[in-house]
């Protein structure tokens, strides 16, 4: 393992034509290779690291906290110059942080926040987007749109929640519930709130169950785009016009953007995975050079509506 890392870093140094003294080997521990968002994140991170002449080695914890701990231990034992960790579980980041700090390896946590933040050792950094923004942007924009449609006399709707074991689902749900308490948005009433485990298929069935209650409604808030799309498919199958319902998701996936261009999805929020990946590299390089880095660095979420989508630099393609 050590030999191969050394060989890899040497090859990288030669290929990249940079002074060998600056070429670093960065260990990147991801929580799961299959996750689409994380794929963009780590690929963005790797491309950026390589463009700067550094080598990045990726390992996959397959959602296993114990496995990730061993992988980080392995990285340290094999003498990587820096570590980027996307923790499997935000509350399990502490031991990895401590291990890296004791070995003196500069470390950045990306996307998943060590909880509590005090469990992250001094001199380490956390790069992510703040979930407080995602659900708030989404629900507030839906509130504005419902108002613009003249529904401020009262609007009813449903909230599709992601996997409750994940921090994002919990935070986005809190965001939505806080927005509908604002004086400006308290005409919105959430009449049903259930989890569909982030899945399109489950959201489809849940929405059909809600439709069977016969309640009138004006909006559907979903913690992610996949569930928003499932709800849209269920409503269209029941013959409901998408002009009559305001639907919002989070993630700005390809399918969601297609549905937005097609006039079905009204609101989504873009989490810039590539920017997070590059931010993590920037932060870890500064740590290696002994520069000071803020403990928390947030890449902003971006609100996407059909209007914004038309001119968005990355998504309008």
């Amino acid at each position, binding site marked *: 393992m050590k030999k191969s890392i050394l060989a890899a870093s040497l090859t990288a140094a030669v290929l990249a034509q940079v002074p060998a003294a600056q070429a670093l080997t960065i260990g990147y521990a991801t929580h799961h290779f*299959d996750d689409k968002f994380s794929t963009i994140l780590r690929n963005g991170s790797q491309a950026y690291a390589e463009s700067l002449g550094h080598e990045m080695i990726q390992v996959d914890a397959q959602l296993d906290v114990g496995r990730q701990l061993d992988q980080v231990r392995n990285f340290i034992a094999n003498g990587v110059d820096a570590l980027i960790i996307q923790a499997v579980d935000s509350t399990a980041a502490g031991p990895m942080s401590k291990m890296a700090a004791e070995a003196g390896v500069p470390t950045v946590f990306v996307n998943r926040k060590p909880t509590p933040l005090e469990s992250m050792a001094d001199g380490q950094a956390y790069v992510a987007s703040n979930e407080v923004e995602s659900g708030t942007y989404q629900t507030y924009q839906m509130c504005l749109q419902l108002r613009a449609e003249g529904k401020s006399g009262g609007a009813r709707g449903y909230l599709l929640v992601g996997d409750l074991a994940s921090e994002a689902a919990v935070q986005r749900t809190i965001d939505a519930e806080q927005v509908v308490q604002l004086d400006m948005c308290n005409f919105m009433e959430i009449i049903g709130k259930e989890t569909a485990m982030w899945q*399109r298929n489950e959201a489809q069935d849940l929405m*059909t169950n809600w439709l*069977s209650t016969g309640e009138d409604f004006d909006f559907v808030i979903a913690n992610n785009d996949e569930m928003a799309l499932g709800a849209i498919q269920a409503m269209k*199958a029941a013959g409901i016009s998408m002009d009559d319902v305001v639907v919002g998701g989070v993630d700005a996936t390809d399918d969601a953007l297609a549905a937005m261009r097609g006039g079905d999805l009204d609101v989504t929020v873009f989490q810039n995975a590539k920017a997070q990946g590059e931010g993590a590299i920037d932060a870890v390089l500064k740590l290696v050079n002994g520069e000071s880095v803020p403990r928390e660095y947030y890449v902003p979420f971006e609100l996407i509506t059909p209007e914004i989508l038309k001119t968005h630099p990355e998504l309008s393609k």
Partner: protein
Amino acid sequence: MSSTTHGLGGLKYDPKKRHRPPELNVFVALVAIVALFEVLGRMFVGDSFLFNTRDKVDTLFNEQRLKIIILQVSIIGIIALGVTQVIISGGIDLSSGSIVGGVAMITTAFAQSALNEYGMENVKPILGAEWLDLPIIVPLAIGLSVGLLAGIINGLLIAKFKIPPFIVTLGMMLFMRGVATFVTKGRPISFLQEDYVAIGTGMNPVFIFIGIAIIMHFLLKYTKYGKHTYAIGSNEQAARMSGINVDRLKVLIYAIAGMLSAVAAIVMSSKALTGQAGMGLMYELDAIAMAVIGGTSLAGGRGSILGTCLGALIFGVIISGFTFMRLDAFYQEMAKGIIIVAAVILDQWRAQKQAAKA
């Protein structure tokens, strides 16, 4: 069978001692759960679970709810039909959920269209532009073959190499989940062609489920295949001695189970308009649970397709009932867990009582 029960070994035929079909108990449980939701609904929600209380439409029942009750379990139900015969034969199949994921990804990769439902152009075809808009038979044949092949491999390893079904299908479960993520490195597949999407629209999943259930019921109840399946599940040695080709039968049983998982994959990806690597996650356990609630014994030799269909309906009623009661999903999971264990306890209690009577 019925003719041999008369006057053998001094035993008299006593209609009181005739076995009550176990499905009847499952059916009673189903009716009881529905009645419970009806009563609770009227007490706490002020609405009826079963009946139509809206003035807009002119029907006696809440048809939309009855439809979703069965629609939401028909996909796992299709898997459960295959799993039922595997369990009756004394085996187990843990690979069905992962086969759904693998087949969904492979099939949808071949079922892509140049345009999506909004008329937008498919700029990133998975297999390249020349593989778009193939005749619908191509993705279907490929998908079903993959499921069939996975099932045959399961069966061969179990029958020829005498590896326990738990281990073999556990291996296949991991392998097929790997295949599912390998196809596109985890990227979801969309832009599915219209013919393919038509398979899972509306109530089609239910019709497919019922159609397959009828075929499987007939197969298990009235053919040599079915009788031999019960025989090897009751006593494999005795079945082998009496001349049943146990190995060939096992391969066939797992092959059918694998193919039904593939059918479920096709219906599911077509219904959701997408192929995703995470599809079918943990479905194997729900499918086994449906069979067990329906009276299929994990010891083998006992169970029926009718029972599994009723087991699936109980699942559907619980899901819809909890949404109707506005209770969150974790209560659903708790209820499902309790019902599975309760079903087995009741089943064993009944078996003991019957043994004591005889």
